[in-house]
């Protein structure tokens, strides 16, 4: 088995601030994802990465940057935090990106912007 570790668990920022969320996985999976979870809206894909140094935009990439410098880690940056924003950011990984693959999720980073 493996685990996905997201840090920090809670993140409080100020409007306009650049904020970075980190994700580590020890599954040795090739593909990693960042999702945003808003209450009542399900999960929306922000970025994904097929391999080290690869980045692919999802449906919600505007306002975010991502980085995959190592196979085991995937970082997400909120480029300018929006006032009163509250969301949970979930990192996930899968062995490949093929449709039947199971996604394995971290427990999330909860963002609050004051």
């Amino acid at each position, binding site marked *: 088995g493996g685990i996905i570790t997201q840090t920090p668990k809670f993140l409080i920022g100020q409007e306009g601030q650049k904020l970075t969320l980190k994700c580590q996985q020890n599954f040795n999976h090739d593909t990693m994802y960042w999702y945003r979870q808003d209450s009542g809206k*399900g999960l929306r894909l922000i970025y994904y990465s097929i391999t080290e140094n690869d980045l692919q935009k999802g449906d919600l990439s505007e306002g975010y940057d991502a980085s995959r410098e190592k196979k085991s880690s995937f970082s997400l940056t909120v480029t300018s935090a929006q006032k009163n924003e509250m969301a949970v950011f979930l990192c996930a990984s899968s062995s490949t990106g093929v449709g039947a693959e199971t*996604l394995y999720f971290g427990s999330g980073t909860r963002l609050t912007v004051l």
Partner: protein
Amino acid sequence: AQSVTQPDARVTVSEGASLQLRCKYSYSATPYLFWYVQYPRQGLQLLLKYYSGDPVVQGVNSFEAEFSKSNSSFHLQKASVHWSDSAVYFCALSPNAYKVIFGKGTHLHVLP
């Protein structure tokens, strides 16, 4: 358009009762279909998945789901729920590589 609809935002049942959580999908072919569960302050965990074969799929913790092509549905069922099943359940489809479309989730509350 590809989409997943979970028509019930919240479902409340008593412990020991049977359960059905509904999921309808929109996709031109047969997609990969999933049910995930999210316990409080945790990430999502896979309950079961389907692509082909027997339309009734068995999952973890005695959950099962039935695929219906004619109804474009993939409903989740359990014969007897326990209070620990209280969680948010997400139906999802994967139409192609790297893309997973999630429903908005159904909050299940099991009364002890």
